[in-house]
């Protein structure tokens, strides 16, 4: 087993991995940029070292500095989390050269799956259905335009080295292609240091369904069921669930989906935790989308229904162990939903909203799980991903998981910055969502990109006014010192309580 693990990441996923290390009795080392010295993940670690300035390029993407830190503190394993260096084959290889185990798949699998065009080619050969599209990247807008004309609009532009929605654009009309290609290419360069963009035929009203797999170094491979991730904004997931309400109704499709996922993983001699993503069309045909060669943001929903700790499995696999669970041990129970709490304003087109969190309160209680990387007083940096927490609800059925989530959302609060909490509060009331009738265009269609302002009941409005008056005035509405009415008339209960309230002050 590992002597010490360095977590080359920040935020909620660093917290998540540190917790797994602590449970396993393995010292956990955090790294931090100048923007993150006071971040929760630093405080939770056994050791913490600075790796550079705030921009990710100088810190969390700084391979030299991270490997240097690992070597000097004696870490023999590095967990990359998701994002940053997690799907960087060069980093995985550099770890190996430095004699430090990269807790993830072999560099070859990362590279092959990281080049999306190559991945499509491999999957095609392995008999896994892929979305019709180009097998190579479009070299310029003209090349892209002719490929798009051949496939027929709408088309999807995707970063060849991409993932996570970065460098992705849906193009409905030819005149939009050039601008979209430039943006996608720019984002791709920025995010993956590679501007290559390829095209796929856009599936109409697609659903995003993915299968979690685990593979060890001894040929053992299992799946942990599927996740439905169709609720997206900007091609990025905002809410995920397991099982998929669509797939649940189609046992035969589910069976084929799992088989395809296992075949996909085998095709690249996969090892460690990975996710095979599929698009599913209205006729329940599914197409390989990409394979994420890392832990997913949404892994908690799988953990909640299977009871299997994916980070622990990653560490055990990386330590050379055989899978500690077999396929028959994977017995899903109930339904889990994850809400990604982003520092974004859902009432302003999901614009990023970095800044200081003046108050943050995430609920506890039965069936609730929260993975967080922020807290009251924390300033969400402008430099990184806006995810500040993940709120999950588990219950025996989807209907009850939604009901539980709804109650938890009413308890949750983040003040000081706008977050997607209000989006989820609206979403759990949506009849289509409750019916499981969702696709990747759902949010844009239902919300038109933004969220309506919430209605305020007259009593809530009055409560706000009374609180405001209480805040500004004092003597006028305060109770006379020491006076206590003895009556028990119903109409006086409020007054009595007020008088008795020692904490009443303006």
């Amino acid at each position, binding site marked *: 087993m590992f002597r010490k693990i360095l977590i080359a990441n920040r935020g909620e996923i660093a917290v998540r991995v540190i917790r797994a290390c602590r449970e396993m009795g393995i010292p956990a080392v955090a790294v931090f940029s100048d923007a993150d010295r006071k971040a929760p993940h630093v405080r939770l670690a056994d050791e913490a070292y600075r790796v550079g300035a705030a921009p990710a390029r100088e810190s969390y993407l700084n391979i030299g500095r991270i490997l240097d830190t690992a070597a000097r503190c004696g870490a023999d394993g590095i967990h990359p989390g998701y994002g940053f260096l997690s799907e960087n084959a060069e980093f995985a290889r550099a770890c190996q050269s430095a004699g430090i185990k990269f807790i993830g798949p072999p560099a070859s699998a990362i590279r092959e799956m990281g080049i999306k065009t190559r991945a499509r080619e491999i999957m095609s050969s392995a008999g896994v259905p892929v979305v019709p599209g180009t097998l190579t990247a479009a070299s310029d807008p003209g090349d892209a335009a002719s490929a798009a004309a051949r496939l027929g609009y709408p088309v999807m532009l995707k970063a060849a080295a991409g993932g996570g929605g970065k460098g992705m654009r849906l193009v409905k009309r030819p005149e939009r292609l050039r601008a979209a290609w430039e943006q996608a290419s720019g984002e791709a360069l920025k995010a993956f240091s590679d501007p290559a963009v390829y095209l796929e035929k856009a599936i109409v009203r697609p659903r995003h369904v993915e299968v979690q797999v685990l593979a060890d170094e001894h040929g053992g491979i299992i799946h942990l069921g599927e996740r439905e991730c169709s609720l997206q904004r900007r091609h990025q997931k905002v809410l995920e669930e397991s099982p998929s309400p669509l797939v649940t109704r189609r046992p035969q499709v589910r069976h084929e989906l799992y088989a395809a996922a296992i075949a996909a993983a085998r095709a690249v001699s996969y090892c460690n935790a990975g996710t095979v993503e599929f698009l599913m069309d209205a006729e329940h045909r599914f197409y390989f989308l990409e394979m994420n060669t890392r832990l997913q943001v949404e892994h908690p929903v799988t953990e909640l229904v299977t009871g299997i700790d994916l980070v622990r499995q990653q560490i055990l696999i990386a330590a050379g162990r055989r899978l500690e669970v077999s396929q028959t041990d994977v017995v899903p129970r109930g339904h889990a939903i994850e809400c990604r709490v982003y520092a974004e304003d859902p009432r302003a087109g999901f*614009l990023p909203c970095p800044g200081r969190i003046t108050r943050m309160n995430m609920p506890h209680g039965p069936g609730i799980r929260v993975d967080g990387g922020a807290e009251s007083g924390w300033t969400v940096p402008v430099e990184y991903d806006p995810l500040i927490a993940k709120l999950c609800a588990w219950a025996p059925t989807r209907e009850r998981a939604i009901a539980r989530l709804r109650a938890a959302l009413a308890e949750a609060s983040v003040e000081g910055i706008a977050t997607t909490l209000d989006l989820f509060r609206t979403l759990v009331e949506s009849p289509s969502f409750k019916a499981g009738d969702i696709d990747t265009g759902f949010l844009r269609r239902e919300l038109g990109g933004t969220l309506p302002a919430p209605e305020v009941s007259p009593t809530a409005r009055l409560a*706000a006014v009374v609180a405001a008056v209480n805040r500004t005035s004092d003597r006028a*509405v305060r109770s006379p010192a020491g006076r206590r009415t003895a009556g028990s008339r119903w109409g006086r209960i409020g007054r009595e309580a007020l008088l008795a309230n020692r904490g*009443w002050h303006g």
Partner: protein
Amino acid sequence: MKKFELSVDGQPLELRAGPGECEAEGVRSTTDVAAVGQGQYSVLIDGRQHLVSITRGPQGCLTARVAGATLEIRVADPRRLPRDGAGADSGGGREVRAPMPGRIVAVHVAQGDAVTNGQGLLVIEAMKMQNELRAPSEGRVRSVAVRAGDSVGAGDLLIGIE
């Protein structure tokens, strides 16, 4: 009960309040307010529980958050307040301002250019996302205040349109 003149989101409201009771818009209610820490109040209106968070805004204005909504409240000043939000995307806006802190990635237009409603003007990046800001209306670019590479704060003027 003491009389208070308030404005709520710019609408005037008269409230009469005393210990344990209040009257507004002709309706009398029992009230019970408890400060539960850091600007938060538990307010019972006829027993109905509301958690209200109060923060001080500019010019003596209070911002109240209740049930997911935000209200601007001014106490003892019945004059109608001008509403906020005459910014970038509001219909008649002639200025494009930064909706959040970030970095300008690209500027697609120059002073004097004619633009159509919805045309992409520039791209701003924050938290790893590029966002294209579009023209709020047809017009001509009067001024361009930023260049690619500039860092901007929320609310900074980027482009003027006439």
